[in-house]
């Protein structure tokens, strides 16, 4: 089972680099959707005893991260009629390299963390840290509002991955609450993205500079 989990996490890490390397926002959203759906499978693979609550968390994660949230974002994207992240702060190639460096650093760093013996062999911790860093790369170097929402989603995916190390601490209802918050958060944010576009005729967050001091 551990090998399968690790294989899945390697794909997740590669998807990060793929998302960093494309300028078409719809492709970024779809990549992160696939990533979310793959991560949604994790609870089924990590837990030894498949209970009803594990299945429900997995199903909810796949439905929200893989289908509902990307659907909302793609809907918002169509409304605002933009296709590409035109001028990121750093070039796409540079961000791929940064992302790869972040993943390598996360691997090295995780090896030095005091992990419980049963978690020593999995990639869960490095994948979680790498995702959080990659999410922050999106948040800080992309200026289209929806790209920044993608960044938030990637950070959240990383945190979800770390949560797989915990079995009893997060009961079903709390896990569902977290997913619901994420969903509503993205929903509200997408509405605001739409309003930004209507008011400023653009979703470039660099235009949002009226409030200073």
């Amino acid at each position, binding site marked *: 089972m551990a090998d399968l989990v690790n294989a899945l996490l390697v794909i997740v890490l590669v998807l990060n680099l793929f998302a960093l390397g494309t300028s078409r926002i719809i492709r970024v959203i779809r990549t992160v959707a696939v990533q979310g759906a793959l991560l949604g499978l994790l609870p089924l693979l990590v837990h030894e005893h498949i209970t009803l609550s594990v299945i429900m968390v997995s199903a909810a994660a796949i439905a929200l991260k893989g289908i509902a949230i990307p659907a909302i974002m793609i809907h918002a994207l169509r409304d605002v009629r933009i296709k590409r992240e035109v001028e990121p702060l750093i070039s796409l190639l540079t961000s791929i390299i940064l992302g790869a460096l972040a993943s390598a650093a996360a691997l090295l760093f995780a090896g030095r963390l005091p992990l419980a013996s049963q978690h020593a062999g999995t990639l869960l911790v490095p994948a979680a840290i790498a995702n959080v860093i990659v999410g922050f790369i999106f948040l800080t170097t992309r200026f289209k509002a929806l790209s920044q929402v993608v960044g938030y989603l990637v950070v959240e995916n990383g945190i979800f991955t770390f949560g797989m190390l*915990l079995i009893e601490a997060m009961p079903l209802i709390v896990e569902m609450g*977290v997913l619901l918050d994420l969903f509503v958060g993205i929903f509200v944010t997408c509405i*605001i993205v739409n309003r930004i576009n209507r*008011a400023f005729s653009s979703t470039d967050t660099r235009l*949002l500079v009226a409030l200073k001091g």
Partner: protein
Amino acid sequence: MAGALILLPLAMAAVCAALPSRRWRVWLLPATALAHLTLTVGALSRPELGVGSEWLVLDPPGRVILLAVSVVFLISSCYAVGDLRLRPDRPNRVFCACWLGVLGVMTLVTWSHHLGLLWVAIEATTLVTAPLIYFNHTQRSIEATWKYLLVGSVGIALALLGTFFLAYASLSAGFESLTFEDLLSHAPKLSKPWLHAAFVLLLVGYGTKMGLAPMHSWKPDAYGEAPGGVGAVLAGCVTSCAFLAILRVYHICNAAGEGAYAARRLMVLGLFSMAVAGLFMIGQRDFKRMLAYSSVEHMGILVLGLGIGAPALFGTLLHVLTNGLTKGALFLSAENIQRVYDSKSTERVSGALRQLPGSGALFFAGFLAITGSPPFGPFISEFAILNGAFAAGRFAVGGLFLFFLLIVFIGMGMTVLQVVQGPGGPGGRGDPEGTEPGAAHQPARRDELLTTLPVAGFMALVLLLGLYIPAPVTALLNDAVRFLETRP
């Protein structure tokens, strides 16, 4: 009791969303808030009602925050009635529903004894308040809402990571749990490296929600653009809820024997917030943004007091109450002034004392109170924190605290005096560009009863806490201090 307190506002929010009459809808706000306060007083007076389930427990610090939230919310709700009446141009369905929703999720924060549930509730406060900040539907309010949502959500996401780290610290110790009781009773066994990392992440995450510098960037924008009543709820209630989360984390660290590690970081962040707030307040032309920086400063004072520890805890918890009430008075009176002058810049606003004797005077009194002048409540709480700093032997911290208070007093004073002094009459009448949709309904250019009385109510309570703290409140605060000091 937990169920009633949490579900009542949420149910009324649903009623608000369904009710077709906009005139009757607004009256549900104070009615629900009054019912909530009544239930709160009931829950506070009978501690045996404070246990809802394993995850929902109203412990002494939770009681203090719940009281602060409920009182500030009731007065702000009364204000919202008057305020919304003067804004007939804006639909109020979403506003009213979200307004009551905030009360429900904030109550959940005060009861949460499971750190995961606590996170869910605090994130929910961000989501429910976003439409309130967006109420004016202007370009500026969109910008403010965007920053609030993005910075708030990302910050809070780090707090979730910190929560997971804390759970991992417990897993390494041989038990795995996120309930507050478990973490507290097994605290000495928690894995130290994970606990340290968790503390930093939780401090950054919930600190973002509190608006501590340097994670405060959303705050001046959100408070500046939100309607005044919303500013009062954000600065008086929501930030207090985030403070409760930091209080819980600090409590666990303290029980784990890592109090010194946590205290140093809290004090540094607290003093830094005060310094940044002071710097940005000097020469601030926008008086609502000035209030936002004042909120940054007072959040700094709260975590500073927490960092100083036992001798300052009473003052810190009292400061949650006094700061919340004074911020209420300031934001509401500032909104009254802004409404009449149609501006919140000192370039166009002066002579508020003549134009609006009620709101102008209350705004000025609120300024004196929040900067720690006697005989108001914040003087007592800030003095208690200062006393605590000296009693704990932290003379440098106490000295810096006084110095920053002085800078804030000067910076804030300059702006406030420009607003209240001078000949009456707005600098520019109405709205010259005619861009405001409400320009057709010029509100009365004087004090209105419904929007001035709540401000007076806030200031009366602030004055009361300065002159005499009622015995039940003292008992409540002492209970909370004892609770925070005990180690399992």
